[in-house]
């Protein structure tokens, strides 16, 4: 059986990113063993799961053939809104949290409406939405970070991002939210009917519509999911760092899209993998952390990321061609 399993494993889109990840671990560890120290692992995991939540939702959206450039702006805007409501005494923190998520859902629904009803490419719609949302966050705060506060002891803060120790590892509750999102979205994409519709919407929308699949509703739901996850991630990050900066999340949209495509999800839609995205998240975050630990100047980070993206794209396109060739 082994000979038939090996080529099948190699042909999987997740195989390349997996090998790259293992290779990176080996190289970084051999140069600097502190790379795998509990402290470094804890630090890397902390932020990884926050940006990772956005990448997981983006995987489904990109599988359906669309993407969302406004996630970084929503990541910055949602905590600003929540804390502004709370600091001004308008609502409790919990109600502010719900309002921030609902507002994000509205932002996602608006993007979805422009894309599915007005048939405007999601690149343009969400670029516009990025500017509107980021502009609103800057305007509301006059460009300044919100005053700091200490939400310690509050139930919401504990549920979202309370920290605890497992052995020498300091972990945050957000890790469990991330794992839950991985399990649920992997299930949705591979096991559920909705997952079949998402892939069909990205692969051949006309065929999907002809079979009675509501492609517009499916995409609308994914735009909402993407915005809500970005808001959720932004709020978790703001509680952990005790800061709500209207500029936070700038540039995240491109990093998130890079994570998704490195993992093997097709930029053109139709094919997506949550496992691959988890690997893509790990690769980019571990790379950022590792090259600093081995003494490469931090400013060189983008060179490595660019090279990884190009290399992975070449690998995925090679696999795709083999696939199309029927081998």
């Amino acid at each position, binding site marked *: 059986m082994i000979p038939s399993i090996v080529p099948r494993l190699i042909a999987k889109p997740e195989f390349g990113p997996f090998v790259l990840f293992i290779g990176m671990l080996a190289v970084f560890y051999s140069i600097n063993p502190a790379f795998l120290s509990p402290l470094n692992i804890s630090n890397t995991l902390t932020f990884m799961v926050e940006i990772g939540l956005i990448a997981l939702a983006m995987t489904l959206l990109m599988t359906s053939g669309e993407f969302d450039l406004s996630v970084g702006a929503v990541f910055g805007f949602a905590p600003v809104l929540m804390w502004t409501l709370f600091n001004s005494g308008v609502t409790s923190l919990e109600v502010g949290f719900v309002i921030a998520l609902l507002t994000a859902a509205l932002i996602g629904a608006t993007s979805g409406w422009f894309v599915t009803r007005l048939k405007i490419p999601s690149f343009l719609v969400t670029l516009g939405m990025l500017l509107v949302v980021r502009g609103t966050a800057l305007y509301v705060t006059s460009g300044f970070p919100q005053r700091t506060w200490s939400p310690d002891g509050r139930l919401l803060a504990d549920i979202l991002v309370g920290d605890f120790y497992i052995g020498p590892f300091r972990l945050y509750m957000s890790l469990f939210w991330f794992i839950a999102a991985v399990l649920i979205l992997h299930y949705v994409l591979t*096991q559920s*009917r909705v997952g*079949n*519709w998402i*892939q069909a919407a990205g*692969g*051949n929308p006309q*065929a999907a*519509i002809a079979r009675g699949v509501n492609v517009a509703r499916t995409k609308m739901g994914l735009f909402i999911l993407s915005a809500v996850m970005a808001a959720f991630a932004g709020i978790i990050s703001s509680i952990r760092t005790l800061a709500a900066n209207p500029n936070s999340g700038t540039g995240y949209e491109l990093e998130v899209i890079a994570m998704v495509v490195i993992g093997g999800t097709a930029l053109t839609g139709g094919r997506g993998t949550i496992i691959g995205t988890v690997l893509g998240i790990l690769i980019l975050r571990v790379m950022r952390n590792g090259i600093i630990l081995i003494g490469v100047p931090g400013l060189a980070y983008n060179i490595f990321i660019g090279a990884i993206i190009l290399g992975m794209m070449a690998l995925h396109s090679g696999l795709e061609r083999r696939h*199309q060739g029927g081998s």
Partner: protein
Amino acid sequence: MAQPLVEMRDIKKAYGKVRALEGADLTVYENEIVGLLGDNGAGKSTLIKVLSGAVPATSGDIYIRGEKVSIKSTADAIAHGIETIYQDSALVTQLSIARNLFLGREPVKGARFFDRMDQEAMNAVARDLMARVGITKDIPPTTPISSLSGGERQAVAIARAMHFESDLIILDEPTNNLGVAETQGVLRFVRNARDSGHSCIFIAHNIHHVFQVVDRIVVMRLGKIVADDIDPKTTSVEAVERVITGLEEDTPPGIPVAADA
């Protein structure tokens, strides 16, 4: 012959000033394969698009088993049991055979909330259908469409139409770009579909392919049906070609001509 399955009456379609259909009548009976022939611009594609819900007719009526129906979209046509198979366009190449077969109508297993596809059942049905449609090679139902040959893709589309009990399967140029063996395969799939009780409309540029598979030939010219009861067993290819091109003013013997032609 059995009773009419589908009747299109006096179908007209204009694109601005261009009149693509000028009152076409087409009848398809139960359990028969009709070959629809005509030169480029004769109106056969437009007529098929009207029947499959891809474009609306300017005027005219469609009856299914004697009952007037309104077909405004592809989904309407499918709901009325009319399935159109275009070269490649009806399948999602990234999805597996089984997932394509059941797209939009996936069976669910377990609690409805979890929306879980019954993939074992889908694969079992897919395997059975591929055999019924005439695929002899052992292709696992989890194979993505992108790995299949052109002929095998047509087989999947035909199998889907058979499984969901489409009464009428329209095949628009199903043998285009296919090799000799693949073409023979597709013709076999079409015959198998007819033998399992489905009617078909078969459109192909290659008149020899049409002759091999159909029970009756209908010819269109300039937006009208000009002959609708040509028997491929008793008529020569050359005689039909003369009707298609309109070079033969006098209808050759053996070719009944539609009343309004």
